[in-house]
């Protein structure tokens, strides 16, 4: 091994970070070569000088300040999380308002329609209505105009119709119990 090769490896040699064969080769070379040996001594001095530096003592309360910085950071990330949710909810405020308005109008219409229709449901005389009333008496009632039986509409809750009196004999209609048909 020549001097230039040895000098390129001296730093790793002082750290014992060379393969065994190279460590031995360098050791032999350093024993016989004053130039490389001087180089080795300087490198070792630098390493030892830095290794011998006193650890710098942190200022008092550093750990507490780090912990409170982390508190702030995690608090801020929670706030961000909330803000993101709010942001998501307000991404389409226009559409949401439109949907809400439409639903409101729809509900109002149903209420009005249901309220008016209830008392005046005419029922086809002497017709079998079991198929309708058996289906779900609490939720459905037959509608009127133009349609003989069918046209089922969702009942305008929240006042579910508790029972229906169905009479095909009397020629009456289908209505909630206790309700008298206006004449």
């Amino acid at each position: 091994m020549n001097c230039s090769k040895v000098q390129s490896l001296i730093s790793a040699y002082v750290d014992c970070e060379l393969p065994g064969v190279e460590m031995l080769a360098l050791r032999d070379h350093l024993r016989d070569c004053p130039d490389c040996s001087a180089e080795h001594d300087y490198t070792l001095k630098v390493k030892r000088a830095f290794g011998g530096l006193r650890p710098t003592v942190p200022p008092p309360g550093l750990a507490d300040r780090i912990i409170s910085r982390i508190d702030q950071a995690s608090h801020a990330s929670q706030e961000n999380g909330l803000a993101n949710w709010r942001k998501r909810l307000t991404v389409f405020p226009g559409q949401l308002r439109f949907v809400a308005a439409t639903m409101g109008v729809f509900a109002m219409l149903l209420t009005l329609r249901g309220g008016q229709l209830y008392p005046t449901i005419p029922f086809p005389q002497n017709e079998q209505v079991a198929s309708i009333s058996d289906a779900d008496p609490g939720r459905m009632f037959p509608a009127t105009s133009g349609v003989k039986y069918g046209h089922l509409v969702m009942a305008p809750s929240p006042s579910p119709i508790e029972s229906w009196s169905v009479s095909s004999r009397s020629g009456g209609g289908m209505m909630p119990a206790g309700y008298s048909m206006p004449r």
Partner: protein
Amino acid sequence: MADYTDTATAVCENEDRKMFDDLVSRYHRQIYNVAYRMAGNAADAEDLTQETFVKAFRFFHRYKRDMPFDNWLYRIMSNLHVDMIRRRPKAHIRSLDEPLQFQEGEAQMEIRDESEGPEDLALSGELDSEMQKVLNTLSKDFRMTVILSDIEGLSYEEVSEAMGCSIGTVRSRLHRGRRLLREKLKPYLERS
């Protein structure tokens, strides 16, 4: 309805947090020492230490437990923009010439070796600040490599892991870094 603090996620987060606070108390001195050598003054060292821990907390879920925690912290620190932290305006910038003033001076004086004479103290203080000045002249990567290897005593493999580079790069940075340091420290090294 159960409060958020009763949920499994919250309990895990709380446990992680407790564990992390313990790690802060255990490692902050060591990290501060490296930060001090990287930054060259106490105010920047504190900033760098805090940034390192805050970032470590944010990515704690990514920490692989087979890596020593201090090496992982070094890795985070080496990815932080030390030079940007150094440029931030500070309320009290401390001179590089007085690195020991901000560091619990009195406590440190008490634990000093009694056998050390005043001349030795002066010399070691002078050498310390001179070595710090010289360290500051190295580029960030060379500086970190020398600090981790020579001051913290990490192996080449550990340095390469902490700095995200090859072992060959560590070796060459140390070789060139030490040469630069040696030239600048020559008058001091020849005295010793």
